[in-house]
């Protein structure tokens, strides 16, 4: 092997995909197999005891899924990754690994609606309490931490649809002062635009369904860990206690920096079960090959569309942090110098009626509940993705009732602008 630090674009194409040793297949083979034969009973015993590496059953590990995992870990600058069947399950296995009944989580209130309900409904019912912080100031997160009970701090690199940017370095300092990890959902940013681990985050989770896969075809999630957090700091005793079902090992004692990810796979994937399907991993890994080029095109188009919207008299506000008018413009320049992705909200003059009219009259933008597709997507959050939230939660999440959310695709920017322009005209005529 060459002793070289390969660039981002090279790793997007190659990381995790050394040609298959048996066949020499250059593309990533799809190992569509539930289970894998053992060489002997001795081999089986050693694999089950985690004494050697080897495939057992695709709920735990699968060679196609492993390629996707290594590729994302490489791009994020992490130690490794564990892939899951969706972004929500990536978060769930992470939270389930670190917090149990009686524990506490500090999270931004400015989260994806499904993340809010995962924490506020399901995990709360399991005895894990979450304090949602309606502030962008790390000091307010610090104030919400309960020493000994709080197990992690959670925020999104780029919130949606507010377009707010997390102060990742500030939140990392707050978490580390309490000897707990900072977990960042970086779905909207992707590692091309921001690598949270470089700013001090310990764990990065993604809905790979969005920009990583990139084509709106495949559900998936992934957890990346830095390998830097000290899991032997006594705030997480499960890492230091003897594990009877794995022959008396201790996760930290036997695996050191590999403890979190090894346990996440051998315990949380084993017990909770949201494995990524091999065929899905193939599609997602193929999507990642073009991530740098797509993200650059998404950001370039987002800039054109956001600037056009802001200059248009029919528009009230545009929540894209790439614009100098956004309250987090400076943060965006710090954390996302190429641009703050292409998912953002804007408010049309005339409120709810004009917003709905706009969505009903677009021809190119697709009206659906997803983001991060090559195609431009549009939706009205208050009546769809965020419908399960209360009025107060909507306000805390920065969701104006007349707000329209756009996920700018990689079509010709002029065509996206043409479509929005004619739809706004039609909406105003109809209103």
């Amino acid at each position, binding site marked *: 092997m060459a002793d070289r630090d390969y660039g981002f674009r090279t790793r997007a194409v190659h990381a995790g995909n*050394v040609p298959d040793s048996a066949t020499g297949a250059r593309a990533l083979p799809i190992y569509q197999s539930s289970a894998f034969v053992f060489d002997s009973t001795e081999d089986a015993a050693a694999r089950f005891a985690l004494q050697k*590496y080897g495939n057992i059953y695709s709920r735990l590990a699968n060679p196609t899924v*492993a390629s996707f995992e290594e590729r994302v870990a490489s791009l994020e600058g992490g130690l*490794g990754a*564990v892939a899951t069947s969706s972004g929500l399950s990536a978060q769930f296995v992470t939270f389930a690994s670190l917090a149990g009944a009686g524990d506490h989580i500090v999270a931004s209130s400015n989260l994806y609606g499904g993340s809010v309900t995962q924490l506020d409904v399901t995990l709360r019912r399991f005895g894990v309490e979450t304090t949602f912080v309606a502030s962008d100031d790390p000091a307010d997160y610090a104030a919400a931490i309960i020493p000994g009970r709080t197990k992690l701090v959670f925020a999104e690199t780029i919130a949606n649809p507010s377009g707010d940017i997390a102060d990742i370095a500030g939140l990392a300092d707050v978490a580390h002062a309490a000897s707990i990890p900072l977990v960042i959902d970086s779905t909207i940013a992707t590692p091309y635009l921001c690598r949270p681990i470089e700013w001090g985050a310990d764990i990065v989770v993604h809905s790979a369904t969005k920009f990583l896969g990139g084509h709106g075809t495949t559900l998936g999630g992934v957890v990346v860990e830095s390998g830097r957090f000290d899991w032997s700091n006594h705030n997480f005793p499960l890492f230091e206690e003897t594990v009877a079902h794995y022959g008396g090992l201790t996760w930290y004692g*036997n695996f050191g920096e590999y403890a979190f990810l090894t346990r996440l796979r051998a315990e949380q994937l084993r017990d909770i079960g949201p494995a990524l399907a091999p065929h899905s991993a193939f599609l997602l890994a193929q999507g990642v090959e073009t991530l740098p080029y797509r993200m650059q095109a998404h950001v370039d188009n987002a800039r054109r569309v956001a600037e056009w919207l802001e200059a248009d008299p029919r528009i009230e506000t545009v929540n894209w942090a790439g614009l100098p008018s956004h309250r987090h413009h400076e943060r965006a320049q710090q954390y996302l110098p190429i641009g703050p992705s292409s998912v953002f909200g804007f408010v049309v003059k005339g409120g709810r009626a004009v917003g709905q009219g706009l969505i009903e009259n677009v021809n190119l933008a697709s009206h659906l509940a997803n983001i991060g597709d090559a195609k431009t997507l549009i939706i009205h959050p208050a009546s769809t993705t965020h419908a399960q939230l209360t009025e107060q939660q909507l306000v805390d999440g920065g969701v104006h009732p007349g707000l329209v959310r756009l996920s700018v695709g990689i079509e010709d920017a002029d065509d996206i602008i043409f479509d929005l322009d004619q739809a706004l005209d039609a909406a105003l005529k109809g209103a």
Partner: protein
Amino acid sequence: MSDATTADTATVTLANGLTCDIPASSPLAKLLKSQRTWVGPSAKERLGILRRAKSVAIVGASPNPARSSYFVGTYLQQSSNYRVYFVNPNATEILGHPAYPDLASLPEVPDIVDVFRKASDIPSVIDDVLAVGAPTVWVQLGIWNEEAARYGESKGLTVVMDRCIKVEHARFHGGLHLMGFDTGVISAKKQVR
């Protein structure tokens, strides 16, 4: 993978130039870890060491299945082509093979001596390695003794330190990849066996 269960102390160099042993998990040990000056072989060089070797002796091998050295022994026996020897004067058999009292009792001179001993023991292990004529001493993950490393190198030894031979072998031979870890391997050639 780590030897945290066997090496509970680290030999550190203090600001006044003196060295002492302190608990490896202490904040001081962690602070001083960031001030290391010895640099071991690169990824490419480590791969070369592993590829050239035909035999590995594990000094400080344990018959206890929960210990890291047992994990490393199992892995090397089953997932590599090395001839693997266990050295432990207090054991008779480990993983179905005889445990030897010292390096000098082995039936051959091993290419790599893999060490699970506390940091302050490393200089005497290096003397044993030199005495039998093995070319490489591999000090396991979590063990750091800069003075000993420099001493070994001055006597012509290849020294790897604070790295797990299981993890490094698995990095280049597919095991780490299977578990979703970043191996750093970018290659258009088939995986080496």
